[in-house]
Every structure is written in structure tokens, then in C-alpha cells.
């Protein structure tokens, strides 16, 4: 599986945020997006998911499911965690497991949810409403989505925000397992995740209006 971006151009307002960008990322490899604020990291990730329309160029996922859009084959971790403060920790995770993988068997789903809670050190908080979690715990719960439903492409936008050092290592381990299993990951991050075998793509500084 390979994510290929060819001569991509994305316009936000009057500014061409991404211009003539080409790269590819292979399965089994993590691609780190770096660059100063405003370089277009978030824009690039949201364009790959399909939220933002691109002006020129192509985005393709070779070896993926041609019937489904790239967004439907991706996990997207954005600035917000996508968790409901009115639901408990396990209810939040159960919802995403059932919503993202509606065809999976119930028993298998329950096992995966429990494994995810265990791996993210959230078991003791299982029944607590998500409203009472700290920022870092909310982030970990948000990342739990990655573990309860299988998707080949992971698009992570600053996934380490508000995580402590131990949790960053935890996240690095999760990403490592994903790419070792033949998955693909593209992460925009300022903190090195400590991944061996990762490529880096440096996006340029903000350009003047074109």
C-alpha cells in the first residue's frame, strides 16, 4: 500500500498554502510532517482526508479499497478529541468502535475495547464521565479510536498535544505497531516520536499571497 501525492496545490482563501507538493509514503513507514506554524501541515492532512478540496494534483492510495474514499480508510486525529463529555470513558470508546466498525462481532469488539483501555491506562477510569478527565486523559481516550477499529492510513495532527512523556512513548509504541502491521502513518508533529525508520517531509514557511 502506498499513499501518493502528485503536484498537489491547495488554496485557502487567496493564499496558495500548498503548491506543487509531491511525495509518497509506503506501508510500513511513518512519515513525519514538520515545518513552522502556518506551513500547511493541518491543511495537508485535512486535504488527504477529503475535508478540503484541492485545486490541482492528485491524491491516491494504491492498494487500498477503490470503492471507498481515502477518508473512509483513514483514522484522523485532529485538534479536537471527538469525545462526548456526557458519556463515560468506556461508552465513548464503545460508540466509536460500533460506529467505525459496524460489522465486527460484538464479543471481538468488547475485547478490543478492553485491550485499548488497558493499553492507554484508562481501565481505572472506565466508568467516569469523560467531562471529569484531564486534558491528557481526554487525549488518550481520543487516541483509543485508533485501536478499536482497523484502518490502514493514520493521519495524525499534533497527536502528542497535552500528553506527558510516558504517554508520548505509549503513542509512539502504538504507531510503531501499526506500521509494523503493514499500516501507513502520516503525522504532523513538533516532538520527535522516537520512531526508527521514519521519513521526514519538511513543509516550507508561509508564503506571501499568490
Amino acid at each position, binding site marked *: 500500500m502506498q499513499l501518493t501525492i502528485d503536484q498537489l496545490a491547495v488554496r485557502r482563501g487567496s493564499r496558495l498554502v500548498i503548491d506543487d507538493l509531491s511525495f509518497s509514503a509506503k506501508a510500513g513507514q511513518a512519515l513525519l510532517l514538520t515545518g513552522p506554524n502556518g506551513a500547511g501541515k493541518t491543511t495537508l492532512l485535512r486535504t488527504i*482526508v*477529503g*475535508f*478540503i*478540496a484541492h485545486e490541482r494534483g492528485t491524491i491516491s492510495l494504491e492498494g487500498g479499497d477503490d470503492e*471507498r*474514499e481515502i*477518508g*473512509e480508510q*483513514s483514522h*484522523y486525529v*485532529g*485538534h*479536537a*478529541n*471527538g*469525545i*462526548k*463529555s*456526557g*458519556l463515560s470513558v468506556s461508552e465513548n470508546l464503545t*460508540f*466509536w468502535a*460500533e*460506529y*467505525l466498525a*459496524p*460489522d465486527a462481532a460484538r464479543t471481538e469488539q468488547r475485547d478490543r475495547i478492553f485491550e485499548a483501555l488497558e493499553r492507554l491506562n484508562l481501565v481505572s477510569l472506565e466508568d467516569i464521565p469523560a467531562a471529569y478527565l484531564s486534558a491528557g486523559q481526554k487525549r488518550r481516550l*481520543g487516541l483509543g*479510536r485508533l485501536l478499536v477499529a482497523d484502518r490502514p492510513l493514520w493521519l495524525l495532527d499534533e497527536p502528542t498535544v497535552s500528553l506527558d512523556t510516558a504517554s508520548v512513548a505509549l503513542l509512539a509504541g502504538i504507531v510503531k505497531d501499526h506500521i509494523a502491521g503493514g499500516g501507513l502513518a502520516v503525522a504532523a508533529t513538533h516532538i520527535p516520536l522516537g520512531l526508527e525508520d521514519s521519513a521526514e517531509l519538511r513543509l516550507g514557511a508561509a508564503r506571501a499571497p499568490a
Partner: protein
Amino acid sequence: MNAFWTLLKRDIRLAMREGGAIGTALGFYLIVIAMLPLGLGPDLNLLSRIAPGLLWIALLLSALLSLGRMFETDYEDGSLELLAIGGLPLELVAAAKALAHWLTTGIPLALLAPVLGILLNLDIAAYGVLVLTMLVGTPAISFLGSIGAALTLRARRGGLLLALLILPLYVPTLIYGIAAISSATLAASEAFWPSFLILSALSMGALVLGPLASAAALRIQLQ
């Protein structure tokens, strides 16, 4: 389709648990209707004549209160983006959310209406018809309203704009809803079915058009 039910279940559970939206809508409905006799004076004939119209208009306004939140909370906490790439078409995401709104707001309001009818001296013959027409007419409120909720998602003070955009679309539902109730009270029962069937048709049209238009608006909002 499983994902649709999962989402519907979650939205209903959240609405029941947080309770604020349902409580506000029901409370607002009660207060508006309770104030009308105070403003209009104790003329029982007058009240009974205009009761169907007042009950419908107040119901529209009460439902409007909670419409703005339909997509807003999901947008704010990032869930909406994830729902959009979840595999369930965005049209069905919008449909599930509108349906949840109807189940948690439209139905309670329709069931409260006959109780409030007592305050307005509503003709006793009209109670059954009132509930029936409101149950059939309120889906249009939720499903057409979802279009407005999606369009005003990122607008500041979107609630006001939402009312301006959506209230005109409720005019047909209002006209045929009131016509159906009036025909029952005036003993002109042959006029009931045409109005009632048009009301049903309006709701069914909204059931299809609402999600399509909301999904198109949501795609723009997610950019």
C-alpha cells in the same frame, strides 16, 4: 445501517442524560402558552377559536430553540469530522441526528400540546386531532430545521439567523396543521383528510430533502 442506529442511540442517550434541550423546549412551550390568556384576556370563545394556531406557532418556536445545537456540539468536540469519515454517508449522519431531534423534542412537544390546550379552552373534539397532526407534522420541523442548523453551524449568533432561514419553510406545515385541526372542531370533517394528507406529504418530503441539503451544507462547513 448498524452505524446509523449506533449514532441514533448515542444522540438519544446524550439528550436524555443532559436533559437541558428537552427541558428548555418544554418549559418554553409551557410559559408562552400560559402567558397568552393573560395577554389576550379571559375571552373563552376567542381563545378557543385561535387555540390551534397558537399551539402550533408556539410549538415551532419551542422546537427552534434546540435546533441550533443539532450539529454544534459535535462540531465543537471534533466528533462531526469523525462521523463524516466513518463510512456512513453524511446524508444518513444528518438523518440520524434529525431523527434523534424529532424523537427527543418533537414528540415530547406534541404530547404536551393537549395539556396546554386546556389553558386555551381548546374544543374538546380537537384533542385527538391535535396530537395526531402534531406527531405527523413535527418531523418536518426537525428535518427542515437540520438544513438551517447545518448552514449556520459556524456562524456567530447563528440562532437568530437560523430562525430567519427556517421559519418561512415551516409555513406550509403550519397552514395545513392548523387547517386539519380547525376542520375537526368545525365539524367539517370532510376537510380533514386533504389537509392531513398534505401535512403527511410535507413531512415525507422533508424527510428526504432535509438530510440531502444538510449534508451538502455540512461538507462546506468542514472545509
